[in-house]
């Protein structure tokens, strides 16, 4: 099975001289389709940098990143933009939706940017919202929605179409525990459909939704939990839930 995301000895350095900061240092990470990986670590450990590099938003200083088997290194800006439109979905902590576009327009935006007709994109957007139980919010603007609703719509946008890599940076950071768990459940459900997911979080309880947890410290992957034997293990009941 081809890994959906593969980071090979990835390093990232910001600045130079006295202001030089090593954000990532020779990090290796492989995420398969259907797998949800949580990345944990203290502030400044390089979690967000790892995510932006994995999502082709930022250049790496050394190493190699492959998304669905394609190396990002040789891609132009436009090729990387196309990759983000077609394969990669992002969920940020806040400010996920574009003001001025309705919920369904936000969800359909990557498809429209990729050339899909407005009506077809809207239909796909409505379907994505429907799967998350948000179809009745389709024509509302972001500032008319609650924080939890906005984040769920962001997830809908991240998985709409044929996205196969979902990257979430503290997606529950601005939510209460109930909404936080709902968001994690949606991420989990998306991964069950075959999407590879990477979620950055500070919350160990939310990280427990993941198949695997990677710990970062000072830009290095210092530990990670074992890969589970199979997806069926996810169905096992967890204490307190």
């Amino acid at each position, binding site marked *: 099975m081809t890994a959906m995301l593969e980071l090979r000895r990835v390093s990232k350095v910001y600045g130079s001289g006295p202001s030089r900061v090593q954000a990532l240092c020779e990090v290796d990470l492989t995420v398969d389709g259907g797998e949800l990986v949580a990345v944990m670590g203290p502030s400044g450990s390089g979690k967000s940098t790892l995510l932006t590099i994995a999502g082709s938003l930022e250049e790496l200083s050394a190493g190699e990143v492959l998304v669905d088997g394609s190396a990002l290194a040789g891609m132009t800006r436009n090729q990387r933009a196309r990759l983000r439109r077609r394969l990669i979905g992002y969920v940020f902590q806040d400010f996920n939706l574009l003001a001025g*576009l309705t919920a369904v327009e936000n969800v359909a935006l990557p498809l429209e940017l990729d050339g899909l007709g*407005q009506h077809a994109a809207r239909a796909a957007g409505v379907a994505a919202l429907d799967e998350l139980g948000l179809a009745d919010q389709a024509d509302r603007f972001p500032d008319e929605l609650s924080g939890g609703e906005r984040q769920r719509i962001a997830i809908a*946008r991240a998985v709409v179409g044929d996205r196969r890599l979902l990257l979430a940076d503290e997606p529950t950071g601005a939510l209460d525990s109930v909404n936080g768990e709902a968001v994690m459940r949606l991420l989990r459900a998306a991964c069950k459909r075959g999407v590879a997911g990477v979620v950055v979080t500070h919350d160990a309880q939310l990280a427990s939704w993941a198949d695997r947890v990677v710990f970062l410290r000072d830009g290095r992957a210092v530990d990670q939990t074992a890969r589970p034997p199979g997806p069926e293990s996810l169905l096992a009941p967890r204490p307190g839930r």
Partner: protein
Amino acid sequence: MTARRAVVRWAWRLFRREWRQQLLVLALLTLAVAATIFGVSATYNLVPSADARFGTATHRLELDRADRRGLDAQVAAVRAWFGTVDVIGRRAVPVPGSVEPLELRTQDPQGAYGRPMLALRAGRWPSAAGEVAVTDAVAATLQTQVGGTVALDRRARTVVGVVENPGDLEDEFALVARAHADPPTAVTVLVRATAERAAALPADAGGRLEARPACHGAVLCATATQSERATAAAGALALATVVLLLVALIAAAGFVVVAQRRLRQLGMLAAVGATSRHLRLVLLANGATVGAVAAVAGTATGLVAWLAVGGRLEPLAGHRIDRLQLPWWLIGATMVLAVVTATAAAWWPARTVARIPVTVALSARPPRPKPAHRSALAAGLLLVIGVASLAAGIDSVHDRANPLLVIAGTMAIVLAIPLGSPLAIRAAAAAAGRSPVGIRLALRDLARHRARSGAALAAISLGLAIPIAIVIAATAAEHTAGEGNLSDRQLLFRIGDAEPLVPEPPPAELERLGSEVDWFAATLDQPAVIALQVAVNPADREGRNGQILRPAVVLGRQVSEHTVRDVGVLYLATPELLGSLGLDPATIDPRADVLTGQTGELRFANLSGPGTPPTVQPIQLPAYTSAPTSLVTSNGLRRHGWQPRPAGWLVAARTPLTGAQVARARQVAADAGMTVEARDHQAQLTAIRTGATATGLLLALGSWP
């Protein structure tokens, strides 16, 4: 295409939500478009049409003969040569109480070519003997109206209508029916022919043939001089383009601010897969939207203003104005120009924003400020170039300007403002070291977000610079007490109008006018009344409405190789005038032709043939432009073979004249058939300054949220 449509839709939605953030740019662009539309419409309609003198004819032949038979023979010869002609008869008749005679005109209202030269405003056309139609000014002079009776040419006539020449509202005449008119003393024949045919007119037809200005080729002209009007309006548009360029610089600074405000949203758009082209398109679409909204709002405002005010410009234009006759293609071009200008202004901010890394955009961290000293150096250089260009381009001594240098200088100074803004922000932040914490935080925040605050400062500075420049220009143009046309204690009564053309009234008429002036002056506080004479060349004369006018010799200043600009009529230095000006006749150099305070290369002007430079004796007098401050000496008069002619009276009171006194003077002058000039208090400059100040205040207080 789908992607572009989605991006443009988002840009439009953002504009609808956040248009208030762009109010300054919108307001300035709307104002510029409105002013351009109004200016283009006004220029197009203010250009005098050749219809006023030619109707729909291509040529106009003036026949001036005393004997009727000779005149009839000439008209017959012209008709035989051209075929269809339109004949307008003229006859000058004296008017009681006026130095200017009245023209009795015979013209067919349905004539082949003269129809645009004649319109009925009230009543009906005269058709019988003893009937006349008059223009409104003639009706006022004769104190009559439709249904009244006037005595003209020793004959009582009933006024049956009010007429006018729509193309020339100053064309005053009385219209009589041709069949019952007395023989004309002059005839105008309107013809329509090719230039070759007109040039081949046999010499024995006589008269002076004048071609319609726009009809230089062999092709017949269509109707009015549309091309001249369009050319003038296009000139106004060209001028407006320069203003729009200035506004574009302000808009560019404004769009930088908008781009910085939307940085995070643009980062989000990039994160979901937008390319650099999509990101650029967001801001370009915003610029185009701002331009389109300003174009529509400005055009509507300009057109409404024109429709409201256009009719009132008829006295200024001197002809009737059809307010709906507008250069629509130029108006369309103005709208397109506004959209293009705003879109072009958004280009640079769009390009810059599209290059910002996605993660930097998403973090909404201010970009690292570029070193301010480089842009400050460029700003300083541009400022020096701008000031030097303006100094070289404006010659205040000779009252002339080089438009290219003035435009280049203005543009350089305007460009210097945005380049110098970051340094100003940095200097303000540096000076905030010991300020209270609130001010310190605010100023340091400005410095941290220098890219945005510098652009905002530049936009506001440029926006305010326009009304400030208008206020300064209006103030500079305002006359001090020692400048202007006359002092506030003086009145200048003229025989005839303000042109340097003097009529030659009979002695009795001259005496009557003098006594009218004396009668008025007696109502003032210890006034001085000085009779004024001008110098005329006996060989020069001009005919107008059947009367002879003499061009007064004028003092001119050579401003270029082929251009002499008038600086004032030369009044005869009589002992009475010299005394009133505080000059001792004994101090006058017998070799001097002219006494004047004017400087430069002075010439005699308004003369036929080349004039010789005058021998000038400098004197110190207030620089009033209409007062007798340039004098020709008796010796100069004799040396050049000129003759003195009465021109009017200068009345000087001891105290400033009141509005009521000036109004009474105008009434006396109008009743006597003279013109009178008082000090121009430049009320329009005050209105302009007030308007600009109010606009500046509005911009400063309310436009930048």
